[in-house]
């Protein structure tokens, strides 16, 4: 076993971002992601990198915009209400095609809600969240190791496609401590010839989302959407387990995927052939991996810590070929493994 350290998901993510070459962190405190900003406050200055506790979430996301425009690997983190405040800035990042990492350690809403874990920001994360019709890549970690590993992937994808990337976690994954194998430092990212680094001896670059001349914005939007199509083609990530002989396919991510995994173990002991498809990218959504199972499975069960948001994408993928069931808790409620197991049994008896 390689050397493991016990760390919270939030701290694992912070250290992962540092090792992924994060140059600048801008944030504003909010539970349940405070360990992340605290870790950055301690370690970024020590490494002579930029840490700013901004005056607000809005300020923080606009600092990310500035640093990203200057070609730096920049990130911010918050929890649900704070992420809502950042949406205007995320829309601007998307419009200006700036790479950036935004971390949402979700808590329950709506409004100020509570600090308990939730997955009720799925729509906000995968539908763009802000105005204007754009996409951000959304990654969904389900343990501390993925919290640690995904910032590197996020920064690489962000640079490759010049797009904001969101890591959509939740309070339980963020707060829970688990053993983590620390990753190597990422190599230096490729140069960014488009960045605003001073135009001495070269033509000047422009970074903007404001394109007021007639027709120009439509061309820009078409190019953005061609890029999104490329991402949908190339960057889908999902993990399949126990699906080869499964009659019931459970689709779940993050904390829900852990619960579903435990429930599937119980169900299998009773002879119920259940398996799981765990989306790792929520956008692009793993439509094809789900569809590839539909000739075998007889029913799909979606488990979320919400009243049902991802289930809509699952239904779009399934296109009515098999029944799609849903189980969820709302407002910070987290089901037990027994609850999810009971739902799997219910689906099994309906077959």
């Amino acid at each position, binding site marked *: 076993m390689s050397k493991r350290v016990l760390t919270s998901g939030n701290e694992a993510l912070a250290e992962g971002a540092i090792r992924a070459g994060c140059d600048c962190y801008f944030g504003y405190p909010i539970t349940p992601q405070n360990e992340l900003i605290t870790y950055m406050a301690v370690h970024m200055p020590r490494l002579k990198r930029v840490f700013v506790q901004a005056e607000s979430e809005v300020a923080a996301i606009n600092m990310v915009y500035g640093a990203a425009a200057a070609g730096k690997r920049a990130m911010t983190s918050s929890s649900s209400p704070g992420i809502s405040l950042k949406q205007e800035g995320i829309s601007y990042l998307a419009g200006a095609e700036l790479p950036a990492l935004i971390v949402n350690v979700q808590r329950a809403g709506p409004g100020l809600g509570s600090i308990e874990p939730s997955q009720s920001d799925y729509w906000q994360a995968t539908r763009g969240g802000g105005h204007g019709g754009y996409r951000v890549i959304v990654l969904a970690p389900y343990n501390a190791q993925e919290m640690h590993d995904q910032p590197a992937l996020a920064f690489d994808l962000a640079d490759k496609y010049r797009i904001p990337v969101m890591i959509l976690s939740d309070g339980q994954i963020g707060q829970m401590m688990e*053993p983590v194998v620390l990753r190597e430092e990422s190599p230096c990212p490729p140069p960014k010839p488009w960045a605003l680094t001073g135009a001495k001896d070269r033509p000047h670059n422009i970074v903007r989302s404001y394109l007021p001349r007639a027709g120009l914005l439509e061309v820009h939007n078409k190019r953005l959407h061609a890029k999104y199509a490329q991402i949908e083609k190339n960057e889908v990530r999902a993990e399949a387990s126990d699906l080869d002989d499964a009659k019931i396919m459970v689709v779940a991510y993050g904390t829900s995927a*852990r619960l579903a995994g*435990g429930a599937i173990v119980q169900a299998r002991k009773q002879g119920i052939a259940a398996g799981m498809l765990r989306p790792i990218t929520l956008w692009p959504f793993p439509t094809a991996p789900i569809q590839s199972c539909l000739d075998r499975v007889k029913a799909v069960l979606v488990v979320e810590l919400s009243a049902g948001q991802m289930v809509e994408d699952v239904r779009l993928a399934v296109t009515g070929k098999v029944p799609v069931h849903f189980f969820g808790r709302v407002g910070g409620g987290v089901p*037990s*493994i027994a609850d999810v197991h009971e739902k799997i049994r219910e689906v099994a008896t309906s077959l």
Partner: protein
Amino acid sequence: MRNYEMIFSGSGGQGLMFIGKMLAKLAIEEYPHVTFLPTYGAEVRSGTSYCNVKLSDEPIATPVVDYPDVMVLMNQPSVDRFLPRLRLGKIAFVNSSLAAATCTGVIEIPANRIALELGDVQAANVVMFGAMLGRERLVDLTKALEAVKASSARKGDKAVLLNQQAFDKGWELGSAARCPFAKTT
């Protein structure tokens, strides 16, 4: 297959998060899967502060402990809240200096009194930690004692000695504890 689920509970400041985390840190050397889940937010500052620890040979689906194998309960509110979850054959270590609980499966350790006799009530959590490990043997004793000493090294030799004595005294009581109907884990 090894699978231990634990709750450590006390009032904020009694150091229950601290020993729960210390156990989890020690356990990653010996168990492939370990989770530690603290309560977070307002609960930390008053009332009951508690954490869930799981050690397992199998992947851990949820860090939340519903029915613990082992509990360490440091005050009366913790006993009131968690003792009803004690199932037959499972163990609760109760700080009998501050809480009354005499049902089957309870091991009473007068942790505050012992810590006071040793010189500082602050070491009561370490007494309980020693007692719990003395009976349950979940991790290596030498490493546990080293971790306890290392955690107080920055406060000077006196603190290290205090914690060592607290751990040893707890271990002695835990090792000797008889508990009818309880299985040794």
